[in-house]
Every structure is written in C-alpha cells, then in structure tokens.
C-alpha cells in the first residue's frame, strides 16, 4: 500500500498534462473541478501511504522508491526517486490537504476570470513541483522541485500580467529567489565535492568525514536558499509585493506551502545543522530578527493582504528560530498549524476582497461582521490562532518554539516574546478595522474608479444618501457586480467549505503535539526517526512548561487587549503607524538606492564609456589599422610589370644570398 507513494506527485502532474491541451475545452468550471479532483486524489493517496507508514515499526518508517537514473556523468549519478519518511509524508499530507481546499476555493474565487483554465494549469503544476521538492530522495531532485515552485510562483504572482504592478511583482519575486537559489546551487556543488553523493541518506551518513568549515558553508549556503524562498532578512521584500497575485495563490503559495519550503529544507538537513552549531545559530538569529522586523511592519500596513504577508514573514521567522534552536519538531509543528490558520486568514481576506469588489484597504472597510458572519467567525478563529490564544493551534506551536528558544538563549526568547505581543496586536488591528466598528465603505468608496468599474447613478445616489441608504438594501442583487454599491455577503459553499474546514483545523490542529506529558507528543514521536537524533535535547520540568505556557497565553491576551483598546472604533492613529514602519523599514528604498541605482549607474557608465569607447574602440581600431595599412600598401601596386619583376628579382637575390651564405658556413 505504501508503494503507491509514486502516485502522490504524479496525479497533479497528470492534471497539468490534461489541462494544458484540454483546459480551454473543459472551460469554466469543469477545468477547476478536474484540477481539484486530481489534488484531492493525491491527498487520498497521501493519507493511505501515511496510514500504511503508521502501521510499521518506527525504525522502518523510511524507504526510498527509485524511479530511474536522471543523468549520470562519471561519478556523478543522479537518480529520480522518492524518499518516504515521516517528515516528507507530514509535509505531503498538509500540502495536498491544504491545496485541495484552496483549489476548491479557487473555483469560486476565479469564477469571473477569463483565464480560469490557465489558473488551474499553474496550480496543478505548482502542487506537482512542491511535492517533488518535498518527496525527492536527493538534493538535485529537490532543487528541481524548488525551481519548479519558484517558476509557478512567478506565473501566479504575475497572473494578471496586464497590471503593471503584478508583472513587476512577479519579476521581483523571481530575482530575489534567484539570489537564494545561487546559494542552494553552490551548496550542491560543495556537497558533491565533499561527500561524492546527492542522496540524502548517503550524504548524511558521510557527514563525519566532512570538515567543520565545509559543514558550516553547506549549512549557510542552503540557508541562503531558504532565505530567498522563505522571505527572511535580507531577502523578504518580495513576499509583500507577491500579494499582487490572486488571493488563493497568496494563501497556497505565499503562506501555506511554498514559502515554508525553506523551513522544510532546514529540517531535512537537520544532520548538517546539528553537526555545524555555528550555522544553526545564524539560522536562529536571522529567524528571530525577521520575526520581529516583519511584525513591526505588519503593525502599520493598510492593505488587508499586506498585513497577512508580513505576518507570514514573521511566522516563518519563528520557524527558522525553532529550526536554528535545534527544535525541528517545533518548526514542523508551527509550519503545520501556520499552514492552517494562515491559509484560513488569506481565504477569509479573499472572501472580504471579493465581497468588497476588489477593495483591499482596511481603512475603507469596517462593520463587516454582521454581513459576513461565516467569514467573520472563521477569520476570528484564524486571528486568535495566530495570536497564540489558548486553546487555538497557534498557542501550542508558538509556545513550543519559544520554550526551545529560551533553552538556547534568553535573548532569542525575548525577541520572540515581544513579537508574540506584536502578532496578536497587528492581527487584532486588522480584525477590528475590517469586521468591527463603523461601516466606512459606503461613503468612503469613490464612484467611477477602481476595479468595480463605473458604478451607475444608483450607487452615486446611495453614496450621497449617507450610510443609511446603502444599508437599507441588504438583498444581494443577482450578478450585482458593478451595478450597485458593495453589499458584502458571505461567499457560496465552494468558498465557504474551505473556510470552515481550515477553521476547524486551526482550532484543533494544536492537539497533535501537546506539552505537559510525553504521551501527548504525537508529532514528536512521529518525527523521531527522522530528526530525533538531531534535536538539541532540552528537557523542561513540568513547572517550567506550565510557567511558559501561562506566560505565552498572557502575552497573546495582552496583544489582543491592546488591539481592542487602541483600534475599537478608531481608524487613524498616526503615532502608531509611523512612516518608517509602513515603508517597511525603508528596505525597498535602501535596495533601490544602494543596489538598483548603482546598478543602473554602472549600466549607464558601461553603455556610455565601456561599450562605446572600449569595446567599440577596439572594433573600430582594428578596422582603422587595416584601412590605413591598406592605403599605404596600395602604393606598391603600381600596375607596372617591371616593378613587380624587380621585386621578384630582389627577392630572388636575397634568397640566393641567404642560401649561399648558409652553404659557406
């Protein structure tokens, strides 16, 4: 049964292969249903393999499935095959599970899009690439998946490529990822040079023969790859721009799955990080700093999706903090629960954006809770979950991360703790501005611009009539897009079902790995065969665990109360939204001034001086030498036979003189 594992990546690939030629014919919504069915089937197979693996003894829960030799040159032999073990199956399970829900949601969300089939082509290709990245049994195949998800991310960010912002956001994501990928590639070269293999298990078995500097270099170069993919300092700005893509894409790729690939990589190479503690410390510190910086930025964003984007960066920082602290189980645990609640939050945001006719500014929303109860309640669960309020899943995973951070360094814990308060606060701010308070959208939305298109006189009149005028029309008008002011309501069941399912998972997902008693550590025991040997064995007393849990809960509730105190019925608080934070610490500005502008200046210099003087000068110089030389030599060609004959005779005399002088000696 467990040998059906090969179907897990192949089913989405099959969906892709069918949709490329026949997607248009299947059309809307059949193409979406086919794509969803393929991913759902993949999820079912994953569950079956997962269950099969569960029945085996812990020591036997890992096997490889070789497919074929991908390429072989001399000693370099790279195969294509799967590594099925508890870690990869945990990833595969939540990737396929969350993907299925988001595919389903997309059928509703993309309903009015002209490129509906193409969207699902990309989504299926993405799921295939992600599963290859997760399940590959060697570094090179993982890199294939790594690049595959990067390309799909580019396609999907720039999905509405006729919008300049989306097109350039896609390019930005691609370029930032390229920097990280260079590190990944260099790490691959180094791994092969030092161990002579790319197979995960072979490489890890030979780590004992690799020197400490090489181990640190491998760890840090792979971490550079992870920094690019998972948007950590200093390569994080692309993730905020990636919000230009459709919201399901943000939920699937830029929150739940692809951006966690970096964390997965860190867990996968846990033997390397275990053997190179210096590299692990760098990972932990970068993670903690990113968590804090991104959380502060999240406090001052006004775009509903950008808040979530920075919160994703921040949560990824937590995951790296955990991985760098040697707490790989905590990293995977947070990755799982984060996938649930962040996908939920994004889908909730998508539902709001949909209802508000593409409005994304939270300052222009408010009071949506009564009109969209399902969205509001599920979003509330997502918020409390990410805030770390017990008993939601985020509480359990985040406290485990913080507990392990404390064991490594109290400073790391302190950064994490401050970030926890900020997280609860900025998500609370978003919740209060969007769902509670006064309705600001009826009067605040100008007519005749934006994506809603030109709204007719009815809308203008309703606007003039003040808030009350719009509120008296609660009945949704059929196909009311563009004909009336927005009258937000909950989406249809295809979009509602994923929201409810993810809310359930966010609520209960924390119970797979509870502290307090070894019997509750389900996830830890499940992952033990893979990462167990590399965990930094921190043992905490029961009192310590309870103490930290209560402290974390207090921090989360502090953040929630802070948000409630500051943002109930208040829209503007300039002092809390300094320009420094809303401009994201001026990092884009800094890159623009210190990287892009010098680059442009250098390019201009190259074009004006290097190219036109040096390169063109060399080319023109050769031509001039030949031309002038030719003009000089032309005079020899007098046309008189006698002068040529004289030349020949002179040559003859010289030759004869030479031969005779040689003969004499």
């Amino acid at each position, binding site marked *: 049964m467990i040998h059906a594992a090969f179907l897990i990546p192949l089913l989405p690939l099959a969906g892709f292969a069918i949709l490329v030629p026949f997607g248009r014919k299947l059309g809307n919504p059949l193409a979406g249903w086919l794509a969803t069915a393929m991913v759902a089937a993949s999820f079912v197979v994953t569950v079956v393999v997962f269950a099969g693996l569960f029945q085996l003894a812990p020591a036997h829960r890992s096997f490889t499935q070789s497919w074929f030799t991908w390429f072989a040159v001399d000693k370099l032999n790279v195969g294509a095959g799967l590594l099925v073990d508890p870690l990869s199956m945990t990833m595969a399970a939540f990737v396929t599970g969350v993907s299925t829900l988001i595919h389903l949601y997309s059928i509703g969300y993309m309903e009015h899009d002209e490129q509906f089939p193409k969207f699902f082509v990309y989504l299926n290709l993405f799921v295939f690439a992600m599963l290859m990245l997760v399940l590959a049994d060697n570094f090179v195949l993982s890199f294939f998946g790594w690049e595959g998800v990067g390309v799909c991310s580019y396609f999907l960010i720039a999905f509405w490529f006729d919008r300049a912002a989306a097109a350039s956001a896609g390019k930005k994501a691609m370029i930032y990822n390229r920097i990280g990928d260079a590190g990944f590639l260099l790490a691959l070269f180094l791994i092969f040079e030092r161990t002579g293999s790319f197979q995960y298990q072979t490489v890890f078995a030979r780590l004992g023969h690799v020197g400490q500097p090489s181990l640190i270099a491998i760890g840090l170069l792979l971490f550079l790859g992870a920094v690019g993919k998972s948007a950590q300092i200093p390569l994080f700005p692309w993730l905020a721009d990636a919000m230009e893509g459709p919201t399901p894409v943000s939920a699937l790729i830029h929150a739940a799955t692809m951006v966690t690939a970096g964390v997965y990589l860190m867990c996968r190479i846990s033997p390397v990080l275990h053997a190179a503690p210096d590299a692990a410390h760098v990972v932990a510190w970068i993670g903690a700093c990113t968590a804090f910086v991104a959380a502060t930025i999240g406090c001052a964003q006004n775009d509903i999706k950008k808040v979530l984007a920075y919160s994703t960066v921040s949560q990824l920082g937590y995951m790296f903090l955990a991985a760098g602290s040697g707490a790989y189980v905590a990293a995977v645990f947070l990755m799982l629960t984060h996938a649930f609640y962040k996908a939920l939050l994004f889908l909730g945001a998508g539902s709001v954006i949909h209802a508000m006719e593409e409005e994304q500014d939270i300052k222009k929303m408010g009071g949506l809770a009564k009109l969209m109860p399902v969205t509001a309640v599920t979003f509330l669960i997502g918020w409390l979950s990410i805030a770390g309020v017990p008993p939601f899943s985020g509480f359990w995973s985040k406290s485990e991360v913080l507990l392990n951070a404390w064991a490594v360094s109290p400073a790391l814990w302190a950064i994490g703790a401050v970030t926890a308060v900020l997280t609860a606060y900025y998500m609370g701010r978003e919740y209060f501005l969007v769902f509670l308070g006064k309705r600001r959208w009826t009067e605040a939305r100008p007519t005749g611009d934006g994506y809603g298109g030109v709204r007719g006189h009815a809308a203008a009149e309703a606007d003039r009539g003040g808030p009350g005028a719009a509120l008296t029309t609660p009945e949704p008008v059929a196909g009311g897009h563009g004909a009336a002011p927005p009258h937000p309501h909950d989406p249809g069941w295809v979009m509602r079902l994923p929201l409810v399912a993810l809310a359930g998972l966010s609520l209960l997902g924390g119970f797979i790995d509870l502290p307090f008693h070894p019997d509750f550590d389900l996830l830890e025991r499940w992952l033990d065969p893979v990462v167990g040997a590399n965990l930094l064995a921190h043992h905490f007393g029961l009192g310590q665990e309870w103490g930290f849990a209560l402290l974390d809960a207090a921090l989360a509730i502090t953040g929630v109360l802070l948000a409630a105190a500051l943002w109930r019925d208040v829209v503007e608080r300039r002092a809390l939204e300094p320009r420094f934070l809303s401009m994201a610490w001026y990092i884009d500005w800094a890159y623009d001034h210190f990287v892009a502008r010098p680059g442009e200046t250098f390019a201009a210099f190259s074009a004006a001086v290097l190219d036109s003087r040096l390169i063109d000068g060399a080319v023109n110089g050769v031509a001039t030498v030949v031309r002038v030389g030719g003009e000089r030599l032309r005079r020899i060609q007098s*046309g*008189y*036979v006698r002068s040529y004959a004289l030349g020949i005779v002179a040559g003859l005399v010289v030759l004869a003189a030479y031969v005779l002088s040689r003969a004499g000696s």
Partner: protein
Amino acid sequence: MSIGASWYLVLAAILFTIGAVGLLVRRNVLVMFMCVELMLNAANLTFVSFSRSLNDIGGQVAVFFVLVVAAAEVVVGLGILVAIFRRKSGATADDAHVLKG
C-alpha cells in the same frame, strides 16, 4: 675533350641573367615574354646538367613538367598579348597599368 658540367651551369647562369635583365629593362611585351622563356630554359638546362652529372633521372622529369607548364603559359600569355595589341597596336608593358592600386 669532354665538356664538364660546370660549363653547362655557367651557360645556364648567363642565359638566366640575360633573361632577367631583359625582363627588367625592355618595354616591349613580346621581348619580355621571350626573356621569361629564356629564364625557364636556363633553369631547364641546370636541371639536365645536374641530372647527367649526378646520374639522377629526376632532373629530366622535372624538365618535362617545366616544358608542359611553359607551353600552357605561352598559350595564356600570347592570348593576353593579342588582346592587348588589338586594343592598342604597339603597346608597351607600361601602357597596361590599369590595375594600379
């Protein structure tokens, strides 16, 4: 009294010099042409002399090749001469300098 090989070589050298000087100093195309032939045959004479004195047939074979090439050259050369004289009778070599660079 037999004549030594050196006499033949001296004769060949004299003939070659006459040909070379004639080629340089004369303007008449036909005469220059004959000078070229003179030089060719001086070379032939050298070949034959060495062939005889060294008892090597290779020299005489070379002469045959030179004769064949000379015959072909005469055909082309005279053709060009006739063409030049058709355009301008009594032309000298210096009149045909249209290929001046």
